């Protein structure tokens, strides 16, 4: 090697080093901004929630145990909102998880390349519809439709809104689950077919178990989405919170209700931007954040735990 070559690879033009350093700062800044904003939001949420709980007219324990949420009477029980959220989440999950999983199995195992190339984009379009449209759809079409089956639905009701939330999150379940199933190595399918398994047995007995971590995390992400869904429930479920009625479980579906998200929207659109009513929004928001945060945590745990299952 000549000394010249050695010079070429050792000398480092100072401009290049400067530019490199600059890129580094730019990327770092972008990363920091998003983290800072997130932390800021959570911090402010927590700060305001603390402020709410320390107000003289607020009983922190009562917030978590109260069964009535009525701003006009300074009743801040979060339980009716929480059960409202749970109700929507459970019903939408009952719709989205089975249908989404079955759709994923179809796309991954049964569909021809042509069918898949039509269906996948179609599902993505479904995911792109603004949720307010789903809400209006629930109100204008789904409720009258469900009434034809004899369900005694009010104009604003839990059932249609939840069905719509369920439909909204199907694409999320199916597309993430399908990714997980497609990632299952073909050698496992071959092994099963070679043993004389039918396609159904291969799908349910080999592919789904091998992809289970991805499928579970798709479920949890979809559920988080259902929990956080606001527009559909604000439009189609009315604006009256209602404690879950254990004596008449079905009645809860026919009537309207107000989950946490919709309650926050309502509070925020009121005129009064101070006082306990307004601040209660932050306490509800914090509760919502904790719930979805825990679910995301669970999702990461599950994914990590099963990640290399078939490696």
């Amino acid at each position: 090697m000549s000394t010249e070559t050695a010079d070429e690879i050792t000398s480092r033009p100072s401009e290049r080093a400067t530019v490199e350093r600059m890129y580094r700062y730019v990327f770092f800044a972008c990363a920091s901004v998003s983290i800072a904003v997130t932390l800021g939001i959570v911090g402010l949420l927590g700060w305001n929630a603390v402020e709410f709980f320390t107000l003289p007219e607020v009983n922190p324990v009562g917030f978590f145990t109260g069964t009535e949420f009525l701003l006009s009477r300074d009743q801040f029980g979060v339980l009716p909102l929480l059960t409202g959220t749970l109700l929507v989440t459970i019903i939408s999950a009952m719709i989205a998880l089975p249908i989404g999983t079955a759709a994923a199995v179809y796309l991954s195992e049964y569909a021809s390349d042509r069918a898949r190339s039509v269906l996948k984009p179609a599902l993505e379009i479904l995911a792109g519809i603004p949720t307010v449209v789903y809400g209006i759809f629930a109100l204008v079409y789904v409720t009258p439709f469900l009434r034809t089956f004899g369900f005694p639905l009010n104009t604003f009701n839990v059932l249609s809104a939840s069905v719509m939330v369920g439909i909204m999150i199907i694409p999320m379940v199916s597309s993430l689950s399908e990714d997980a199933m497609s990632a299952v190595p073909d050698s496992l399918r071959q092994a099963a077919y070679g043993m004389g398994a039918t396609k159904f047995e291969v799908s349910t007995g080999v592919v789904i178990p091998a992809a289970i971590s991805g499928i579970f995390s798709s479920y949890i992400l979809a559920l988080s989405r259902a929990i956080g869904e606001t527009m559909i429930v604000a439009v189609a479920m009315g604006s009256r919170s209602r404690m879950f009625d254990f004596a008449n479980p079905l009645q809860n579906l026919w009537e309207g209700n107000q989950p946490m998200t919709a309650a926050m929207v309502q509070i925020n659109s009121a005129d009064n931007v101070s006082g306990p009513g307004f601040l209660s929004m932050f306490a509800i928001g914090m509760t919502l954040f904790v719930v979805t945060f825990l679910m995301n945590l669970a999702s990461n745990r599950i994914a990590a735990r099963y990640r290399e299952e078939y490696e």
Partner: protein
Amino acid sequence: MSQERLTNQDETVSSGENSADPTSEPLVDSAIEVPGKNATSTGRTILRAQSFDVYYDDVQALQDVNIEIPEKQVTAMIGPSGCGKSTFLRSINRMNDLIDAARIEGELYFDSKDVYDEDVDPVALRRKIGMVFQHPNPFPKSIFDNVAYGLRVQDMDVDEQQVVEESLKKAALWDEVKDQLDKSALDLSGGQQQRLCIARAIAVDPEVILMDEPASALDPIATSKIEDLIDDLAEDYTVVIVTHNMQQAARISDKTAVFLTGGELVEFDDTEKIFENPEHQRVEDYITGKFG
């Protein structure tokens, strides 16, 4: 993956004959029941291809293959890469159905039944003709569940415990795993995994076992274990094995088929004859390493 043919057939299987009496597969009506698997090898032909061609789209992978594979012997298939050995193997139990582009012509008989006849159910066929792949592919399940898998999908009315033990013994793996049957199969070494795959294949008591380079991913010691095992298997089963290893073919097989580039079966004869005195110059060149 669309497998129209297989899908249609699948329905037949789950609703039809198999669920009723899975142990006596009516795949081949005229199949001669082999009384006891220990009968001495008769050399009866169990697999027969006649003017058999395979195409992938427009590319021909096998040309006019004619071969008679004897029962309960080891038949080796050798030949340069891309000459169609795997293709032929996959044709026998119709794993080619899983490849959209694959298309066949000609006849391929298992006993006296053409496996490509309309009324043959590939699922039932694969229950009679097991397969071991080049790379060990155990399911991400326990060792026990891996071996029992076939029994379960085939709904076989047997003592699982006992069959699993016997199969693992036949596959020369029992002593190594008997205390850890609940352990994940993925924790085994590559050679153990491959023997597990063999155990899984023999658990359902097939008649033929197809092996596609079963030892190519293994070290010499694991390889020699597999070779010993293949020797034993030939007592009970017909073994068709693809290998790239000439010495291996010479060591373990009774018959050898030499495929050469273009998907042509050039010579098929007793292994000794092939390796000592082949008819074709091309085969001799290939075996002695002058070509291919």
